[in-house]
Structures are given as structure tokens and as C-alpha cells.
């Protein structure tokens, strides 16, 4: 197979960067496998329990960048108990011990302790990049260690993490010699920041391109920061309240005009609407705008702002913009590719003000739309069909009707036809989240048409096992399936056990699956971890949690419904860090 020396092949492989592609080329032949594995620098592990850290290091000794994901997606919505797992510490220990030249760590939904951060900061001399998304378990003390010890740090990106504030003054611990920062995002931190230290840090970081600050950073501090960093491309504003007649505000307006490179704007964690006009000058360059955390901006102000943003490609906004506001978006933002509309009042009945009308307007105006997350009060089949016809390019389509089983208000019908139109029209659809009243029909459509579908989220949908079976049979590229509160049971679970080895994971909660079926599946498929999670007040049968499959003697136990089940393929066997409410069958 090899007509070229290894070095040449390796050079060619350098151009192959996506994980999937590299996985593919490693399957071609033994020597390609060897060359590929010795040269792979960026390793992505979608489920931290699918393989042990030692095996990863053994296969990819040249690893420089490690990306890991931990908890299942539904952990975002409190469906996974707090100490379920997803600890990064064992990975750091293994990497440190093996002395690999780790430069970058990217984690999502993992538990990161201060110890882990301290170990990272002391083990890897060339460490440049730490990205933590939706993680928890660490405090500002851990950040102190990273700031103080990672002398080559270029990227510290903290997105939506739960971080305990220990008043560590962590920002002060960046040494004077630290001048290499390119990205600094601490918008999720709740505590105070030494503003002077931040200003000095920005002043000595000429390469800084992304800066997202937290609420503690005031408008006058922002003005000083921007005057030091006119080269910024991505800005996250903290507090944006000030007397618009003051000298400070006047200075800010002038400083902002100098920031000609800003293309992404976010934050406004605290904002007074009358201050917003200060940012109008940068709006014409914006390709990304995230106002989804900016509570308190009335629709009229949002609309005024949007009118300036003709080049937007990504917009994250709260639903208080209203259907009318979305019409303005549709007529102004012709380049829009990604739209997310979040609920400003998730539990306020009737306060939500976007409906199917807003989405339909968007579909007429924004033909390039390919990614959607839309929380709304109601949806109709007619609207979905229109959207499907207008926007055939959806790659991600996630709809969330606040009342999860709401029918089409015009026809009282389920939304099967509407979603059916979406999957039929959008041939490249990779991710789909359903809501509203839905029967098995929608799953028939999904199985028939959603050929590229990789991830499906189902809640309160379907009528029988057949629904889930259609999906398992039809969606050849399915990788992740997560289901809650739907009537899928043992027949669905056991319809095609082999399928789960082609998928990353399956989550089923509040469905009709019994313990017996889970045990049967675990017995049949040793390469799967089938976890039963029981965090309710019901006592867990001791015999079940011995770790190894145990024959249950008590009658009827096998017929007991399983509240939460999470299964995933793995080469690592049952995990040894499972808490007592998790049982791997």
C-alpha cells in the first residue's frame, strides 16, 4: 500500500485535521494506522468513560491537545445527579506522569477540581490553552494557580462554568512577564475583580483578541481597557450602566469608535438601555451578537440596535424581542446563519412573546439560516412546513415549545407533519430536538428521511416502542439519542442491541424500560456500560449494586421500571468512580 516513505505520508496526513477524517485514515492499513497515531496531536474523546487515559497516551504519544466531554447532555437540565462523575483529575494525573507535551485542554461538562488545575499548571511547561465549558468543581484558587504558573498561557476561556469565588484575586497572579494572552474569558465568574490589575494585564497583552469580562467590570473600567486594546475582535461587556451625560461616557463613545476590529459582541450582564447607543458604531462590523444574558433591554431598544447590524451571522437573543423584533431581524440580517432565542422568563406563564410567526418571518428573510435554537410559546405545522421550504440548509434544528406537549393551536393536530417536513427538506440535518404533541409518525419520518442525523433529543413524544425503533433502524449515522418521558420500553431498547456499538450513547429517563431489559442488554453487549441511575428516595436494592451483574432473587424486580438509564460504548469497562446511586449492570 505504501509507495512513499513514512515521512512523506506523515506530511500528507498533516493536512488531514478533522477527527473523523483522521479516524478514517487510520483504518486504511496497518502502516497508515501507525503513522497516523504517531503523528496525531489533537485528540478528541467524546465520552471520557469510553477509554482510559493510559490507552489514549499509549496510542497517541505525540498528543498536544486533549478535548474531553463528561456528563451526558441532559445533565445541563438537572436530570443527572450532582456527583454522577466526569472527573478530569485522573486524566491530568496520567498525562502528567507520562510526560507528554500537553499544550491544550478543552473540557465540556466535566468536574474540574482545584487540584486538577494546580496539577495542570505545574506539569506542562508548554501549556498554552485552557477551555472549560459548562464545568464545575473549581474555585478561583485553581485559577490563581493557572494564572501564576502557566507562563506561556495564550488562552483562558471559561464558558458558563459554576465557579466558587474565594476572593483569590486570581487576576493579580498573572506575572508582569505574562504578555502572551490572546483569549481571556471570565464572564461566568461571580466575584469581584481587581480592575487595576485587569487594566494592566490588558495593557501588556498586545496579542489580545478576545476579552470577555464579568459583571464586576464597570463601564469606566471598560473604557480604560478598550483604550489599551483597540485591536480586540471579540468583546464581552460586563456592567454597562453609566450616566450618559458624564465625561466617562463621552470618552467611552470615542474609544469604541477606535475599535474597528470588533466583530463579536456579548455579555451586557448588567445594562441600562440608554447606554446602548454607545455601541452603535461597532454594530456595522458585527458578525456575532449575544444578548442572551442582557435582561432588561426592552424590545424597542433591541430593534434599534439590530437595525445597525447588517452583517450579523450569529444572533443569540432573549424572547422579549418578540415576533415583531424577529421580523426586523429578518429584514436586516440577510447573512444570518445561526439564531438562538432564549426564554427570558422560563416559568412565567404567558409572558413569552415569540410564536411561530417570528420563526416564519426569519425563514423568509434569512435564507442562509442553518442553525436554530428556538424557545417559543407555540408552533404550527403550517409554520414548520413553510420554514422547511424556505430554509433547506438546516444542520441544527432545535425547537422548544414551553408547554412540551402542546398541539398545533390552529388544527389541534400533533406536530408530526411539521417536523416531517423539516427532516425531508433539510438533507444535511445533523442535530434535531423535538417538542410539542408528537405521535410515532414523526419518528417514522425521521427514520425515513434524516439520513445525516447524528443527535436526536426527544421529550414527551411518541406513542409506542415503534417510534424509537423507526429511529434506530432508519438513522444510520445516529450517534447520540436522548429520550425523556416517552413511552418507549423494552421492545424498543432491545430491538437492535448492536446499534449501540455504533453510537456514542443512549439516555432514557422516565420511559417504560425495565430493569430486566437493561440487564439483558448489558449481558448481551459487554462493550457497553449500561448505567442505572437512581437518585430518588427509593432504596436501591443492595444486590444490584455490587458492580457485577447479579441475579436478582426477589420476584418482580426485573419488571421494575428504570427511572434513568445511560448507556455508552466503552473500551474501559465499568467505571471505578461511580457513586452509589449509579449501578453499572
Amino acid at each position, binding site marked *: 500500500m505504501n509507495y512513499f516513505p513514512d515521512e512523506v505520508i506523515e506530511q500528507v496526513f498533516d493536512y488531514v485535521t478533522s477527527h473523523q477524517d483522521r479516524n478514517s485514515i487510520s483504518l486504511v492499513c496497518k502502516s497508515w494506522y501507525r503513522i497516523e497515531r504517531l503523528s496525531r496531536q489533537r485528540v478528541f474523546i467524546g465520552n471520557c468513560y469510553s477509554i482510559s487515559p493510559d490507552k489514549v497516551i499509549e496510542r497517541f504519544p505525540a498528543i498536544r491537545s486533549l478535548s474531553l466531554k463528561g456528563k451526558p447532555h*441532559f445533565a*445541563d*437540565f*438537572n*436530570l443527572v*445527579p*450532582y456527583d454522577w462523575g466526569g472527573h478530569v483529575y485522573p486524566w491530568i494525573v496520567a498525562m502528567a506522569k507520562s510526560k507528554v507535551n500537553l499544550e491544550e485542554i478543552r473540557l465540556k461538562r466535566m468536574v474540574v477540581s482545584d487540584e486538577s488545575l494546580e496539577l495542570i499548571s505545574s506539569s506542562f511547561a508548554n501549556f498554552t490553552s485552557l477551555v472549560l465549558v*459548562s464545568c*464545575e468543581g473549581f474555585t478561583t484558587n485553581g485559577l490563581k494557580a493557572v494564572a501564576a504558573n502557566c507562563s506561556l498561557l495564550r488562552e483562558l476561556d471559561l464558558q*458558563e462554568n*459554576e465557579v466558587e469565588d474565594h476572593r483569590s484575586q486570581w487576576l493579580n497572579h498573572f506575572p508582569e512577564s505574562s504578555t502572551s494572552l490572546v483569549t481571556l474569558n471570565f464572564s*461566568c465568574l461571580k466575584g469581584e475583580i481587581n480592575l487595576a490589575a485587569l487594566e494592566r494585564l490588558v495593557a501588556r497583552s498586545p496579542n489580545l483578541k478576545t476579552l470577555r469580562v464579568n459583571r464586576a467590570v*464597570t463601564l*469606566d473600567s471598560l473604557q480604560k481597557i478598550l483604550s489599551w486594546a483597540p485591536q480586540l475582535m471579540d468583546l464581552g461587556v460586563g*456592567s454597562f*450602566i*453609566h*450616566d450618559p451625560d*458624564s*465625561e466617562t461616557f463621552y470618552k467611552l463613545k470615542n474609544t469604541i469608535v477606535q475599535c474597528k476590529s470588533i466583530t463579536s459582541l456579548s455579555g451586557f*450582564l*448588567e445594562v*441600562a438601555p440608554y447606554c446602548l447607543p454607545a455601541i452603535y458604531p461597532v454594530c456595522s462590523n458585527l458578525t456575532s451578537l449575544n444578548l*442572551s*444574558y442582557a*435582561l*432588561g433591554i426592552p424590545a424597542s431598544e433591541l430593534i434599534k440596535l439590530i437595525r445597525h447590524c447588517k452583517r450579523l451571522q450569529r444572533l443569540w437573543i432573549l424572547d422579549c424581542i418578540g415576533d415583531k423584533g424577529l421580523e426586523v431581524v429578518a429584514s436586516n440580517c440577510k447573512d444570518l446563519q445561526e439564531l438562538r432565542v*432564549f*426564554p*427570558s422568563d*422560563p*416559568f*412565567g*406563564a404567558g409572558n413569552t412573546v415569540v410564536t411561530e410567526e417570528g420563526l416564519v418571518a426569519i425563514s423568509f428573510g434569512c435564507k442562509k439560516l442553518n442553525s436554530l435554537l428556538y*424557545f417559543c410559546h407555540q408552533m404550527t405545522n403550517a409554520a414548520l412546513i413553510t420554514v422547511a421550504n424556505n430554509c433547506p440548509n438546516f444542520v441544527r434544528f432545535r425547537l*422548544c415549545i414551553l*408547554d*412540551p*406537549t402542546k398541539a398545533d393551536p390552529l388544527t389541534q393536530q400533533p406536530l408530526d407533519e411539521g417536523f416531517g417536513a423539516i427532516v425531508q427538506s433539510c438533507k444535511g440535518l445533523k442535530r434535531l430536538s423535538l417538542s410539542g404533541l408528537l*405521535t*410515532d409518525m414523526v419518528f417514522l419520518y425521521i427514520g425515513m428521511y434524516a439520513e445525516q442525523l447524528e443527535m436526536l*433529543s426527544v*421529550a*414527551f413524544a411518541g*406513542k*409506542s*416502542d*415503534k417510534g424509537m425503533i423507526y429511529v434506530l433502524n432508519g438513522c444510520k449515522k445516529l450517534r447520540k439519542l436522548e429520550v*425523556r*418521558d*416517552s*413511552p418507549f*420500553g423494552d421492545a424498543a431498547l432491545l430491538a437492535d442491541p448492536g446499534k449501540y456499538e455504533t453510537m456514542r450513547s443512549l439516555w432514557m*429517563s*422516565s420511559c*417504560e424500560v425495565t430493569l430486566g431489559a437493561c440487564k439483558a442488554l448489558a449481558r448481551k453487549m459487554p462493550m457497553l456500560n449500561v448505567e442505572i441511575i437512581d*437518585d*430518588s*428516595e427509593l432504596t436501591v436494592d443492595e444486590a444490584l449494586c455490587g458492580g457485577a451483574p447479579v441475579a436478582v432473587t426477589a420476584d418482580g424486580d426485573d419488571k421494575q421500571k428504570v*427511572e434513568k438509564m445511560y448507556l455508552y460504548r466503552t473500551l474501559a469497562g465499568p467505571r471505578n468512580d461511580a457513586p452509589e446511586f449509579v449501578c453499572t449492570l
Partner: protein
Amino acid sequence: MGSFENDLNLEATELRLGLPGTEESEKGNGFRSSNKRPLSDSEAKQDGVEEKGPKAAPSPKAQIVGWPPVRSYRKNSLQQKKADPEAASGIYVKVSMDGAPYLRKIDIKAYKGYPELLRALENMFKFTAGEYSEREGYKGSDYAPAYEDKEGDLMLVGDVPWEMFIASCKKLRIMKGSEAIGLGCGL
């Protein structure tokens, strides 16, 4: 397509979608999770504002665990902002009065607006502030409540919107005598 639905044998596996808390059918599916606990199970992480409290008065439909599917981080963040006026993190500023031997401290976030704040100051220092008007400042009093803003300037209390005042007030000073009259404008 009609007979197709018959084949599905919907009766036997029908999902009864009653509201949480209502009687469940034999199958007992419904919104099962709501029987166990009304809202989030990781209480440790939530600030508790959204739960149980009558203040939000959510409809029964809203009490489903994990629905709508909004990340806890985002939910907490929005809840916190809404609850902010009642949050424990007050803004304490020093209050001095010309001639008084020592200063006091008050939490300006504890007040909903200028009238409340002025009443509190009047009580604390035993004076009357007079009547405020934009044109004439505090009329009918020897005293004028003033504050130092973030830029160090001495400003008259009451000129700017309340939220702006809270955000920019660093110190309060109750001025007396001729100086006060100067600030109070008028003649």
C-alpha cells in the same frame, strides 16, 4: 395511513398526558418525575429562587424537572438578576453630615427610591430635607443631601434616575448652611 395507526395499537400503550399531580392511569407514566420532586434535584446548585416560592407562581405545567431545557447556569443567571433588588449583596456607603462627630453607613440598595432614602436619612440624622425640585433643589431646608459619584464630583441627590444613582454613588454627604443653599440653587 389510517390503518397504519391501528396497527400501532395505540390503546395499549397510550401515553396519558395529564398535568402533574393529577391522577395517573394504570400505566402511570404521565409526568412521573414531577411526583418525586417539584423542581431541580441538585438543590445545592440552585439558588432556590425558582422553587416552591409563591412569588413566581408558576402554573402546574411549569413544574417539570428540567423543562424547559435551559442550562442551569443560564437559569441561575437570569433568576439572580431578577432577584437582585432583594439580594443580600447590599451597597453600603458612608454618610456624613456637616457638623456631626461621626459618620454612618447605609445600604442604598435597601431602598426602592429617593423618597424612601431621604426619609431614612432624615430619621438617622434628625433633619428635614425639604422639597426637591429639579429647578430649585431642596427648598425649605438648611440641609441638602449630596453624594460623591464615581468621578469624585459632588452631586445633588435626586437629579438622576434611581438605578443610575445606585450605580454611581460612592459616598453620601448631608450638607448644611450656606454651602447647602448654593447647591440647592434657587436664590
